[in-house]
C-alpha cells in the first residue's frame, strides 16, 4: 500500500501517457477476470481454512487436526514423496531423451518431438485407463506372464502402479520444458571445452550440463507442482498407501462438505507449490520459465555454487572412471547406439500405452481381454447410442469451444498489451497471468466451487467455461506471447501512418501476422478444457456432465470396453486438433 502511494505521481503520469500510447489497459479484462475467478476464490479458500465453522472466529484448529491426525499426516507425506519421486524420475529419464532430441537435425527433431507431443496432449484419463488395462490383475502384462506359465505380479493399486502412471504423465512435460534450453545451447562450447583439454565427461558435466541446468530446474519445478495436485493417477492406479492430498480434498468436499478443512489441506499444497517456486526463483529467476533469459543461468552464488561445482566435478570423475571400462567392454559401436536405443525405448514407453487401448475398443468381448477374442464395432455402437455419452461429448465440445474463444481473446489482448509496455508493472502482470499454471488445479477448483455455490453457477455450462478459462489462460498467454515477441511493431506504425486507426491496424495487420500464436492458443485452450476433470468434478453435476467427468465416474465404478471406445474417440479428436494446429500454423508468413 505505502509503496503504491509513494509512487502515485509517477504512476499517474504514466497512466495518462498510456491512455494515448501504451495500451496496457488491454490487459485489464484478463486482470479483472483472474482477480475475480482466480485470486479471490483462492484467497477466500485460504481464509476459510483459518475460520471456525460455526462462529467464523479465527482458529488454527484445522491445521492442528491435519498434523495431529495420523492418517492425514501420512497423506501429506505420501503426497510430497510421490510428487518428489515423480519429478526426480521424470528428470532422470527425460534428460537423455531431451539431449538426444536436441542434437537431432531440425527436420527429424520435429518428427521425434511429435512422439513426445502426442502423449503430452493425450487425456490423463485415457492414459490412466490404458495403464489399468496394462497393469491390472488380468491386464496385458499379467496375461503375457501367465501365458508363459509365470504367476501374476501385483502391478496395480500399489506404489509401482502410481509411479508408472505418474512418470508416464509427467515425462513429456519434463522433456518439452528442458528441450528449448538445450536446443539453444551452443554445442560449440562443449567442443571448445574439449579443445581446451577437457575430457568428454568433464566437457559434458562442467559445460553442457551446467548450462542446461535452468531447463532442468524449470522441468523439475513444473513436474513437481503438477504432481502435487494429482488425483486421477493415485485414485485409479494406487492403493490406500498412495492416497494423495487432492483425493483427500475431494472427499472432504464431496462427502463431508467440510470447506474449512479442505481449505487447510489446500493451503498445505499451495504453500508447498509456492515455496518450490520461491526456491526456483532465488536460484534461476522465474522469468526463465517463460523462456526469457535471466542473467543467473547456471545457478546461484557463493556456497551453493561452489558446492554445485564440486558435485559436478565428482560426477565428471565418476563417469570418466565408469565410462572407460564400460566403453571398452561394449565397444565403440554399441556405445554410439546407446543413446538412440535408449531414446527409442522411452518413446515406446510414452506412446505404447495409448495404442494398447485401440484393439480393446474393437473387442467383441464384454471384458477387457487382451488380445481381444474377436473384433467388431459393438462398443462404439454403445457409445453412440448412449444419450449420456453423446450429450457429455457435445457439452465438452461446446464448453471447450467457448473456453478457447474466451481464453484466446483475453490472453491475446493481454499479450499484445504487455509486449509493447515498458511499465514497471509488466513483470508482475506477466507473473499473474502465469499463476494459474503454478497454483495446483485442485486449489483453484475448490475455490471456484465455493464461489460458484454462492452465485449459482454450479452445474452450469457457464461455470465450467469460466473455470476452464482460468486454467487455460496461462497456456494461451504463453503461446501468444511467444509469437508476439517476434512481431515487428514497425508494421503497425506503418499502418497508422498510412491512415489505419487502432482497430483497423489490429484487424488488418497485427492479427493476421500473429495468427500462428492465436491458433496455437486456441487449440491449447480447447484441449485443456476438453480434457479437464478437476473443475468438472465439482462444477459439472448430475445430467450436466462432461466427457472426462463421465469417464471418471465409469472408471471408478466399473471398467468396461465402452471406455476404450470413448478413449479412442477422445484420442482421435485431440490428434485431429493437433494436426490441424500444425497445418494452420505453418503458412504464417
Amino acid at each position: 500500500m505505502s509503496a503504491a502511494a509513494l509512487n502515485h505521481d509517477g504512476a499517474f503520469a504514466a497512466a495518462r501517457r498510456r491512455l494515448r500510447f501504451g495500451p496496457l489497459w488491454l490487459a485489464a479484462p484478463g486482470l479483472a477476470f483472474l482477480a475475480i475467478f482466480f485470486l479471490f476464490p483462492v484467497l477466500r479458500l485460504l481464509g476459510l481454512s483459518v475460520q471456525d465453522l460455526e462462529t467464523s472466529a479465527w482458529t488454527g484448529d484445522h491445521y492442528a487436526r491435519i498434523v495431529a491426525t495420523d492418517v492425514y499426516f501420512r497423506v501429506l507425506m505420501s503426497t510430497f514423496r510421490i510428487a518428489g519421486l515423480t519429478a526426480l524420475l521424470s528428470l532422470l529419464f527425460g534428460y537423455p531423451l531431451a539431449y538426444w532430441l536436441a542434437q537431432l537435425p531440425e527436420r527429424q527433431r520435429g518428427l521425434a518431438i511429435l512422439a513426445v507431443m502426442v502423449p503430452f496432449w493425450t487425456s490423463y484419463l485415457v492414459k490412466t485407463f490404458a495403464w489399468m488395462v496394462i497393469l491390472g490383475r488380468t491386464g496385458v502384462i499379467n496375461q503375457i506372464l501367465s501365458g508363459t506359465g509365470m504367476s501374476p505380479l501385483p502391478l496395480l493399486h500399489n506404489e509401482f502402479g502410481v509411479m508408472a502412471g505418474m512418470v508416464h504423465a509427467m515425462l513429456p512435460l519434463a522433456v518439452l520444458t528442458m528441450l528449448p534450453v538445450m536446443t539453444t545451447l551452443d554445442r560449440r562450447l562443449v567442443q571448445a571445452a574439449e579443445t581446451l583439454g577437457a575430457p568428454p565427461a568433464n566437457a559434458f558435466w562442467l559445460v553442457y550440463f551446467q548450462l542446461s541446468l535452468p531447463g532442468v530446474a524449470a522441468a523439475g519445478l513444473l513436474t513437481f507442482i503438477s504432481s502435487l495436485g494429482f488425483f486421477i493417477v493415485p485414485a485409479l492406479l494406487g492403493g490406500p498407501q498412495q492416497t494423495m492430498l487432492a483425493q483427500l480434498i475431494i472427499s472432504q468436499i464431496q462427502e463431508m462438505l467440510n470447506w474449512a478443512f479442505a481449505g487447510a489441506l489446500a493451503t498445505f499444497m499451495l504453500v508447498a507449490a509456492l515455496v518450490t517456486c520461491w526456491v526456483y526463483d532465488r536460484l534461476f529467476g522465474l522469468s526463465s520459465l517463460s523462456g526469457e533469459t535471466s542473467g543467473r543461468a547456471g545457478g546461484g552464488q557463493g556456497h551453493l555454487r561452489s558446492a554445485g561445482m564440486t558435485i559436478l566435478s565428482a560426477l565428471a570423475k565418476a563417469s570418466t572412471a565408469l565410462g572407460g571400462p564400460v566403453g571398452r567392454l561394449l565397444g565403440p559401436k554399441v556405445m554410439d547406439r546407446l543413446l538412440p536405443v535408449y531414446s527409442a525405448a522411452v518413446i515406446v514407453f510414452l506412446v505404447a500405452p495409448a495404442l494398447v487401448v485401440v484393439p480393446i475398443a474393437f473387442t467383441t468381448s464384454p471384458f477387457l481381454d487382451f488380445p481381444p477374442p474377436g473384433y467388431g464395432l459393438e462398443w462404439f455402437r454403445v457409445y453412440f447410442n448412449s444419450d449420456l455419452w453423446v450429450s457429455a461429448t457435445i457439452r465438452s465440445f461446446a464448453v471447450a469451444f467457448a473456453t478457447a474463444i474466451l481464453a484466446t481473446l483475453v490472453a491475446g489482448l493481454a499479450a499484445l498489451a504487455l509486449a509493447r509496455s515498458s511499465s514497471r508493472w509488466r513483470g508482475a502482470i506477466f507473473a499473474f497471468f502465469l499463476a494459474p499454471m503454478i497454483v495446483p488445479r485442485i486449489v483453484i477448483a475448490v475455490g471456484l466451487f465455493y464461489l460458484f455455490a454462492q452465485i449459482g453457477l454450479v452445474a452450469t455450462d457457464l461455470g465450467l467455461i469460466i473455470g476452464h478459462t482460468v486454467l487455460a489462460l496461462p497456456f494461451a498467454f504463453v503461446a501468444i506471447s511467444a509469437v508476439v515477441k517476434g512481431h515487428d511493431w514497425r508494421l503497425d506504425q506503418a499502418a497508422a501512418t498510412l491512415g489505419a486507426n487502432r482497430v483497423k491496424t489490429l484487424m488488418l495487420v497485427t492479427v493476421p501476422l500473429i495468427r500462428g500464436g492465436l491458433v496455437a492458443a486456441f487449440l491449447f485452450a480447447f484441449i485443456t478444457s476438453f480434457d479437464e476433470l478437476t473443475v468438472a468434478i465439482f462444477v459439472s453435476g448430475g445430467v450436466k456432465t462432461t466427457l472426462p467427468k463421465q469417464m471418471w465416474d465409469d472408471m471408478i465404478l466399473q471398467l468396461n470396453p465402452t471406455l476404450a471406445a470413448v478413449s479412442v474417440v477422445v484420442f482421435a479428436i485431440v490428434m485431429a486438433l493437433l494436426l490441424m494446429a500444425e497445418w494452420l500454423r505453418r503458412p504464417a508468413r
Partner: protein
Amino acid sequence: MLSPLAQARTAPVQAGAAATPKLLVDGLTKRYGAITALEPTRLEVPAGEFLTLLGPSGSGKTTLLQMICGLVEPSGGRILIDGQDETRTPVHKRDIGLVFQHYALFPHLTVAENIGFPLRMRGVAPADLARRVKEALEMVHLGHLAGRFPKELSGGQQQRVALARCFVYQPSVILMDEPLGALDKKLREHMQYEIKRLHRETGATIIYVTHDQEEALAMSDRICLMNHARIEQLGTPHDIYARPKTAFAADFIGVSNIFRGQVRRDGSGTPMLVTGNGSFRLSADTPDRPDGTLVVRPEQLDIDGDGDNEVRGEVVDTVYAGSETRVLVSLGGEETITVRLRRGTAPPRLGEVVAVRWRADAGVLVS
C-alpha cells in the same frame, strides 16, 4: 509531362516569401527521462522543398521525424502543417507519409494490396483504387510485380513498393527515414535518382533523413545538419560546404583541413591565425573573435603553387580515386593535410618535401 499525381498540387518553392510554410516545427522537444533526444527546435519547410536531416547517429533525426508524423509524443512545442496545429492529431489522421528504413511492407499482403492499403483506409471506391494502384506501380516501374508478396522481391524492388505506397495517397508531407540505408552503393545511387524524379513529378514536400553526406549534398534543396540533439546548421548544400559555421559542420560535410589557433591583427590590420604550424593570413572579412578553427578544403590547396599561406611537409601517401587524386602531406607528428591534385599534374613522389599554399580568402574561420 507531370504525372497525374502531381496535378492536384502546384508546388512552387517560395524563396523567402512570407507565405505560410508547409511545415512549421516550433520549439519542438523530446526528453526520455534524463536523456534529451531533441532540444527545443524550430524548423520551417516551404511547400515542395526537399530537405535533408543529416547528422551522426543519435543526433535526434529519427526522433524529430517521428514527432512530425505523430509516432512519438513531443515533450513540448508545436507542429503546424499549412498553418494548422497538428501536435495532438493522432497518427492516422495526419496528412503525412512515412517511408521506413526497412520498408515495413506488410508481409501478408501482395504488392498491390500493400499499395492499396492507404487508399482502402481512406474509403476510396474499388475501381478508383485499382486504377490509382496501377498508376503508382507504373510510376515506380513495378507494374509486372503487382501480385507478388514482399518477400519475393529484391531489396530495391521492396524499396520502390514502399515509395509507391507512400506516394499513392498524395500526402502533403513525405518523411523518409534512411530509406536507402539497407541497399548497396550502386542501387542506392539509382534510387536517389528515382526519389528525386518522384519529387519532381509530384511536387511533394519531402523531409529526408540520412547519415550519408554525399547523398545529402546530391539530393537536397536544403540540408539541416544535426548534432547533439540540435540543429547545427541549416542551409543549401553549397552554403554548408562553402561556409560551415562550426568545425563540426566543416568536418562532417566533405573533407576538411583544420588548423586551430589564436586570432591576431598584424600591423596593417590584416587578421592572422597563430597556430602550431605557423601564422596564416585570414580573409579580410573574418569576423572578430579571439580564437577559432581555420577550415581549408583540399581543392583550395596547391602544391608548390601560389598563395598567401604556406605549410611544408613530407608526402606520405597519394590516393587515386578515379576522378581525382589526393595527396596526404605530413606536417610532422600526427598531423596530416589532404590536398587535391590539380588536373594534369604529376603526383609528387613519396617522401618528397613539398610546400602547400592557399589564398587567404579560401579559408573559413569557424568557432
